[in-house]
């Protein structure tokens, strides 16, 4: 029996600012919007419950972006140079600089609110994990931030799967709101907003994960990160950038526990199976492939991945992280376990189940499947306007973090070119977007026009998978095999297989080429047409159906961008085997795209890279 209502109720919510996604970026947006817009109606729409939603749902053990300007530890320019190196030259340095100069104030707010930050009793300074990272007892990091959000927003609507953005009926380049479905009671939500901030998630489960059974849940980025950050914007016709810049992370094998604290704080080292360091001996080969980038300090994340992959392919794996050499005191053992218990509990479960005592034996490292996101060591996302005082002219068209659609802002995973934000930077970017959105509202007091016909068409579309199952589902005895119905999990398996085999996933050692990409796009087009036959037995599957739709938009964008960039800019993230080298002469520029919702056509083109200094 389905729980999808036959005649869903429609709720219309009118507001000044709609924030889509209540993770760190969205929470920062709600707080800041309230500070500058005391009388505004600020509404948050969240797919789950903000107390434990987003990428920080289970907590964190470090804040990976903190300058420490008050102790003169780092200046924003230092951070720009670091990100420039790590991204192999390609980031929006105006956006990166903007995050860096504001992020300390965000962290100081968090500390005042009650976040326990490791402090050195002698110096009074935060304990550094690495140059940019500080250590926290972050089990309740998200509930803490959610408390501030609840006190800032006018309304928070939870369990709303936002499916589409609404554009102004009179001006398709102006935002007007969004629609979605409440996956608890099945009602339909129409948000009519004067400004919209998309702070939704990047994407896991675009590429097939290494663990394909129930272990598929243990993706590095959460399984609920379904690419809404990109799908919503692409369909609205917003310009996107760096969608080919997917992320592969080095992690503890299977449990995907993070390695940062081990390398940086505990000073553990990784070796091949014979106990040998391998990075230095592979430098000559690396220089031949990427030129001077091979000698950037610290070595770019993708290149470290690349060297590990080469070592494994040469038969000298597994790669081992020597935890047993550094856990020489009970305090260090506690730090090692807490690192996982605060942010990747599944790794502690993996150790307990496999009987691994990290103080006695080393652990295997592995390269993950690829992810599409914009807040870690990659920066896929929307092309947005930069800060007024530092952005080069061609990166600036009015309001900070506004996309190419008027009144539509981005923050966190949504914003492209702005890498290495992590939790604190994403929150800061939400704050930046919100302040700019309030300024936009002052300049644009008029309410946008929402066409009833558009809303009606979307309402019909949103419930189509449930209607399709109710109408066409009968006729088979039982089970999930039906000639006219595709279930969301079946479609997801197909998407992941296509992306893995044609788009440069783990089974292809992250390698792809023009021929493979073109075939992959063909398979994605067939999957797109099959989505007309999606079936949803209940509201849960209806959510999964729309998550699949969002992942498919994201995946198509990734393949198109990967096809357009004829070089291997980030070896270790992916390889264009037909163009295996870094090619600065042709490709030290951004690959951008615009999907035209009227014609259904994609346009790909380049935008220049402009260094900030």
């Amino acid at each position: 029996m389905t729980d999808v209502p036959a005649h869903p109720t429609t709720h219309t919510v009118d507001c000044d600012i709609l924030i889509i996604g209540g993770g760190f970026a969205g929470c920062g947006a709600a707080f800041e919007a309230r500070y500058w817009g005391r009388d505004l109606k600020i509404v948050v729409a969240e797919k789950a419950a903000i107390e434990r939603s987003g990428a920080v749902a289970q907590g964190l053990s470090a804040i990976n972006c903190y300058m420490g300007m008050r102790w003169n530890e780092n200046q924003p320019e230092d951070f720009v140079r670091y990100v420039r190196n790590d991204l192999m030259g390609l980031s929006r340095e105006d956006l990166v600089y903007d995050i860096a100069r504001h992020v300390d104030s965000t962290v100081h707010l968090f500390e005042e609110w009650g976040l326990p930050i490791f402090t050195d009793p002698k110096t009074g300074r935060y304990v550094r994990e690495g140059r940019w990272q500080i250590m926290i007892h972050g089990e309740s990091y998200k509930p803490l931030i959610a408390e501030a959000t609840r006190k800032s927003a006018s309304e928070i609507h939870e369990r709303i799967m936002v499916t589409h953005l609404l554009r102004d009926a009179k001006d398709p380049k102006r935002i007007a709101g969004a629609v979605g479905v409440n996956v608890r009671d099945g009602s339909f939500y129409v948000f009519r907003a004067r400004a919209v901030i998309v702070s939704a998630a990047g994407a896991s489960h675009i590429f097939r994960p290494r663990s394909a059974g129930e272990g598929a849940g243990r993706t590095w980025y959460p399984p609920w990160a379904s690419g809404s950050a990109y799908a919503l914007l692409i369909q609205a016709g917003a310009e996107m950038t760096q969608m080919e810049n997917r992320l592969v992370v080095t992690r503890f094998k299977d449990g995907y526990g993070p390695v940062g604290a081990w390398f940086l704080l505990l000073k553990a080292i990784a070796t091949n199976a014979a106990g040998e360091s391998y990075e230095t001996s592979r430098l000559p080969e690396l220089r031949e492939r990427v030129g001077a980038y091979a000698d950037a300090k610290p070595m770019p994340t993708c290149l470290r991945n690349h060297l590990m992959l080469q070592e494994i392919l040469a038969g000298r794996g597994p790669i081992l992280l020597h935890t047993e050499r550094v856990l020489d005191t009970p305090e260090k053992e506690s730090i090692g376990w807490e690192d996982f218990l605060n942010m990747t509990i599944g790794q502690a479960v993996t150790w307990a189940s496999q009987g691994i005592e990290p103080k006695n034996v080393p652990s295997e490292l592995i390269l993950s499947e690829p992810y599409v996101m914009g807040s870690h060591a990659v920066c896929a996302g929307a092309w947005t306007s930069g800060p007024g005082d530092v952005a080069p002219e061609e990166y600036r068209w009015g309001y900070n973090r506004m996309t190419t659609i008027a009144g539509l802002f981005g923050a966190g995973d949504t914003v492209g070119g702005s890498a290495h934000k992590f939790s604190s930077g994403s929150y800061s970017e939400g704050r930046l977007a919100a302040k700019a959105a309030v300024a936009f509202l002052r300049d644009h007091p008029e309410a946008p026009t929402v066409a009833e016909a558009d809303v009606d068409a979307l309402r019909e579309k949103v419930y189509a998978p449930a209607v399709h199952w109710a109408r066409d589902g009968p006729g088979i005895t039982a089970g999930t095999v039906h000639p006219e119905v595709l279930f969301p999990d079946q479609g997801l398996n197909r998407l992941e297989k296509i992306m893995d085999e044609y788009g440069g996933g783990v089974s292809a050692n992250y390698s792809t080429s023009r021929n493979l990409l073109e075939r992959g796009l063909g398979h994605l087009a067939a999957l797109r047409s099959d989505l007309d036959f999606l079936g949803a037995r209940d509201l849960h599957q209806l959510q999964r159906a729309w998550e699949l739709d969002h992942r498919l938009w994201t995946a198509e964008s990734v393949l198109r961008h990967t096809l357009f960039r004829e070089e291997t800019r980030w070896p270790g993230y992916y390889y264009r085997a037909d163009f295996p080298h870094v090619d600065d002469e042709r490709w030290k520029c951004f690959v951008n795209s615009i999907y035209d919702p009227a014609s259904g056509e994609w346009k790909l083109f380049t935008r220049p890279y402009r260094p900030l200094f």
Partner: protein
Amino acid sequence: MPTYVRTDKCKGCMECVTICPSDIMHIDAAQGRAYNIEPAMCWECYACVKSCPEAAIEVRGYADFAPLHHSVQPTRTADKIEWKIRMRNGDLKEFVFPIRTTPWDSIRPPQESAPPNEEAVASELLSFEPDYLAVESLPTLPPKAGAP
């Protein structure tokens, strides 16, 4: 299967259904108790485990790579979290970590601070800046500045 729910403890209170970020903790209609409807979409984030007032929810590591007979179980209170870990060989480990330095519900909302002036609105400053930057002023660069 990542999370599972003990029949003798679950009262069907819905806390786990409310909190689960992945929408996979649901109530089984026949029993009136919670269960994990989609283990392959469970992140082992423990949001439901921590929220359960009956301590009815536990985790069995992913069958893809985790041998049976282990346990990682927390007890979370207002200011700390206690972890009990049972290794495969029966060894036990216990850890306690703080989670918050202030009382819950003590955060001052932004609208309780003095309203911003027009100069601040027009500037690049965010709320509570430059004070909370703990440096004199917000750094900036002239557009297309030369190398420092």
